[in-house]
């Protein structure tokens, strides 16, 4: 077990936008089949981190290793290599598809790019298998994205990302735009996909309940830095950093204590 290479390994990642340091020395490792949560308030640098992993932004400094190898640049080779290992799901299930393509056509695209030798029939079979895997009907597959619900589109986005069997899936607020009951369905789907395929997740969310459900370990980000890390359960049950405590106390639950939130905020300000 210990000799296994992490499928994703990030170290001292920094990203600056002008004067703003969005990500400031972030590092973590992800073992094959594991699920890591990234939590933190709005603006803490979660999306920026996820985009760097997916190659949509270049880090100012720091390294990203995929299956032990560094990935940098936008050369064709680098692009394909990275995409082959890591795929991303976006928050907005409405805008993630070319409006002019049917869902099945969209799902077929990455397969066409990464497995060009696959015959047309094999590709269609693979698309049908993927749609089935995420619980979409053939009819949904033949529809343009605008005819699908948000939950269906997010299923389709998952099918499209899984098509080339990546080893890591980065999900940026992937269920945030969905109704609570649909959220639960998608989370259940993600859980079973991970069991079946051994894919690893980086699950970005500000929703701690969701993160508790879907991840084994988590990092807490604040102002671009990781302030706490460990088992998700442990972090949520027994937070060490005042910021994590504030996040937890900020969740509206029965017996919610706004005074305690204010106290947490003061403790955090004092500790910085």
């Amino acid at each position, binding site marked *: 077990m210990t000799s296994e290479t992490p499928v994703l390994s990030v170290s001292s990642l920094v990203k600056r936008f002008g004067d703003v340091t969005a990500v400031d020395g972030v590092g973590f490792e992800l073992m094959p089949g594991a699920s890591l949560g990234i939590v933190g308030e709005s603006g803490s640098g979660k999306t920026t981190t996820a985009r760097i992993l*997916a*190659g*949509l932004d270049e880090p100012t400094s720091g390294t990203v290793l995929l299956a032990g190898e560094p990935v940098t640049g936008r050369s*064709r080779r680098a*692009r*394909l290599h*990275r*995409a*082959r290992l890591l*795929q*991303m799901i*976006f928050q*907005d299930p*409405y*805008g*993630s*598809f*070319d*409006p*002019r393509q*049917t869902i*099945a056509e969209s799902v077929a*695209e*990455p397969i066409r*790019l*990464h497995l060009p030798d696959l015959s047309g029939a094999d590709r*269609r079979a693979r*698309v*049908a298998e993927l749609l089935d895997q995420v619980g979409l009907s*053939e*009819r949904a*597959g*033949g*529809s*343009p*994205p*605008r*005819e699908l619900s948000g939950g269906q589109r997010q299923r389709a*986005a998952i099918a*499209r990302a899984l098509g080339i069997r990546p080893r890591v899936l980065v999900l940026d607020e992937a269920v945030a735009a969905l109704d609570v009951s649909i959220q639960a369905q998608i989370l259940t789907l993600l859980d079973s996909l991970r069991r079946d395929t051994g894919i690893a997740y980086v699950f970005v969310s500000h929703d701690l309940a969701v993160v508790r459900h879907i991840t084994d370990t988590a990092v807490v980000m604040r102002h671009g830095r990781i302030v706490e890390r460990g088992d998700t359960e442990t972090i949520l049950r027994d937070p060490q950093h005042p910021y994590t405590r504030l996040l937890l106390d900020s969740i509206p639950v029965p017996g919610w204590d706004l005074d305690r939130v204010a106290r947490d905020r003061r403790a955090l300000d004092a500790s910085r």
Partner: protein
Amino acid sequence: MTLTIPALRARGAKRRRRRPLAVTLAIAFLLAAAATGALAPLLAPHSPDATSLLDSLAPPGTAGHLLGTDSTGRDVLSRLMYGARLSLLAPLGVVLLSGVLGTALGLLAARAGGWVDAVLSRLMDIVFAFPSLLLAMLVVAVFGPGLTAPICALAVSYTPFLGRVVRSVAIQEGARPYMESYRAMGFGELRTTVRHLLPNMTPVLLAQSALSFGYAMVDLASLSYLGLGVRPPAADWGSMISQAQSAILQGAPGSGLIPGVAVLLTVVSVNVLGEHIGGSIARRGEGT
């Protein structure tokens, strides 16, 4: 595989909306104009160049000359039919040329960004600021009259008109999540731009092209009017108007008004059609 068939049927049914009357009329007019141009040798009652000084300035409705004759006795209907050829093809040439140039430059500026965008944008501003007719006249002065020079000159001066719109729409559309998701899937910029961005911009391209067609038609007619377009005796609507000047002063406006109305109707029809096509494509691609 039968995957797409039921959905296609459903989509087709939903998409069929009633076509507005104005659009039907515009299509009918443009088809008729194109057909008369193409079939002019068969349809025209006279040769467009046959002069007959005895019959000059016959009013519309004269026997044998349905739309009358011009000051040299040429049959207006026949010249109108033959004139449809150059009058429609020349603006089409301008639209196609400026469309290709403008789309290419606009997309390049939007997708490359940085200094490429800065240079291209300034360049387009400069060309945009230069009056198109003046540019066309300068080019004609250098290369001599005929249609090629004015078509190229107008195409160049219309390029920024489309290029600037393409650029701003491409920047907007390029930031949509589906474009990013293609990048994350490992697709290159060129392919995503051509295969996904460009098709999603067609409504804008069509609407702008229709506008350009109208402007080009009027500009080319003006050039012909100034004697800088087609060389006589070849007919086009602009030169027909210009040659009718003296007739109009003599109180016989028909030979000038009729081609003028043809220009007007064509410009309006193309715009109505362009707007309609643009709108229906936009509806089809619309998210919920």
